């Protein structure tokens, strides 16, 4: 069974075709890297996969189940989690509160209006465990407004990891990080168990290549090249549209 199967997906914004007949098959446990120049339609593809945008035509299946018309929020309950290229966190809360919200999203407890959230120890312990995985447990109680950009990038990833996803979508997890921070995030992503399928958009080839099993190259909304890491990197069309001569 395929983890993520996309068939003939199309999306236009007015006259602009941002996703053109895209088909994609990602195996369970695979690490898929999606590359392409700016405006290639990578983030739009992510928004179609998560359901934040509805496609004009085509199908999306998650582990054999057609989710083309499943609302975005239900895809989270089916085991899909994502991070954002532009950091999308809860600025007024502490780090641990951010992670607790991610855990709460999949729990029926989220509808409870009478119990005290701070007294839900299972939830806060779970959140701390996730923070330990990303190396932020020592500053769990820090308000997000007082954290550095690199720490926020890791919170961004931790929120997705907290939901224990089957399919993890990472939108430029290395964006804006220093070399040291990139190494940290790389280690963090390498430690994700193989039960999780990972699809990642990334520009930083030096850190991203090491994570990828297969690579898909998008250009003007179309899949130009697809194959193993070595094959795509060696392909002349990759050099032409992306890596530069």
């Amino acid at each position: 069974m395929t983890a993520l199967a996309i068939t003939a997906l199309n999306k236009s914004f007015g006259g602009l075709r941002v996703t053109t007949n895209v088909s994609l098959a990602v195996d369970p446990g695979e690490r898929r890297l999606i590359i392409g120049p700016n405006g290639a339609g990578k983030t739009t593809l992510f928004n179609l996969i998560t359901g934040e945008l509805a496609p004009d035509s085509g199908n999306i299946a998650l582990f054999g189940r057609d989710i083309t018309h499943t609302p975005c929020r239900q895809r989270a309950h089916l085991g899909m989690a994502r991070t954002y290229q532009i950091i999308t966190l809860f600025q007024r809360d502490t780090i641990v509160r951010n992670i607790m919200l991610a855990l709460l999203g999949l729990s029926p407890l989220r509808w409870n209006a009478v119990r005290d959230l701070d007294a839900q120890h299972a939830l806060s312990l779970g959140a701390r465990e996730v923070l330990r995985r990303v190396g932020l447990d020592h500053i769990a109680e820090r308000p997000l407004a007082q954290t550095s950009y690199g720490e926020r990038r890791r919170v961004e990833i931790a929120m997705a990891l907290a939901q224990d996803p089957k399919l993890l979508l990472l939108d430029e997890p290395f964006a804006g990080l220093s070399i040291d921070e990139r190494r940290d995030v790389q280690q963090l992503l390498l430690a994700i168990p193989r039960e999780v399928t990972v699809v990642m958009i990334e520009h930083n080839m030096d850190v991203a290549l090491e994570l990828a099993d297969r690579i898909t190259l998008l250009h003007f909304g179309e899949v130009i090249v697809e194959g193993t890491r070595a094959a795509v990197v060696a392909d002349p069309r990759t050099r032409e549209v992306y890596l530069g001569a």
Partner: protein
Amino acid sequence: MSRLGPRTGAWLLAMLLLATLPAWIGNSYYVNIASQILIWAVLALALNLLVGYAGLTSLGHAGLFAIGGYAAAMLLGAGYGHLVAAVLALLVTLMASAVFAVLALRATGIGFLMITLAMGQILWGIAYRWASLTNGDNGITVASRPAPFGLSLSQAPAFYYATLIVFLLALASMAVFVRSPFGASLTGTRDQARRMTALGYNVWLIRFLTILCSGFWSGVAGLLFLYYNQFISPQVVALTTSAEALLMVISGGSGTLLGPIFGAAIVVVMKNVVSAYIERWNLVLGVIFILIISFMPEGLVPGSVRLWRSGWHALRGKSAPVSAAGSEASR
């Protein structure tokens, strides 16, 4: 933990003052003013659920406030008892809130504001123009206040205590609500609606249920208002009522539990007390609001906490982590 913290002490003192207010204030005119403050505070607390915690600004809450009062007044006029009238009036308010929610939640921000404004004006139009139903400009008079458990509420202190109990119930339920997982979900939809959806939350339903909750307490406030005046007229449904309620929330401090209560106190005192001495009391109210917005843009309660702390730190010669401390205290 036998020693009381300053916070608990302040709460106990406030409770003691509120519970003994008719005894030390004496004059029933001022007891009535206190009742009015509590009634408006319930409405402001209800509106604050939307404005402060959901990030949805409504300019139609006078409609939800008045529809409960009008429904009860009509039912009482038709010969129903107080309990039946009150329960049915709250059901009518809930239904009206549901209609408000379904229509207004097609948008957020200014769109939400305009739709709630339009619906509030429709209800005002009905109250004002549909004279066969609402008695138009003359309004509806209610013969008597209820006497729960045989206790008459006709005197000012008795009505004050009834209002105080309802007010405390509203405050307690909201204190529990905002600390609950659902409350956290709600503020999450205010701050990052997109991420909340991706995390598996039903943002629309969270907002819908919150509007119902806000509508319910607005209806309760409307019932209290009806019984306080024993009269209701289209003036209550007017846009100025919605705007005043919003001013109470924003001036006191939206998204805080105590802010709307202080906001309600300022507006009611200005309208009733200051207006007796200064003809242009509206001008004074306006100046006060400008001062609040200028020096405490976050509202009177969180703003005072911030100024108090920075003053305290300045006294002790430390540099104050002003903004962080202020926002933390306003939770």
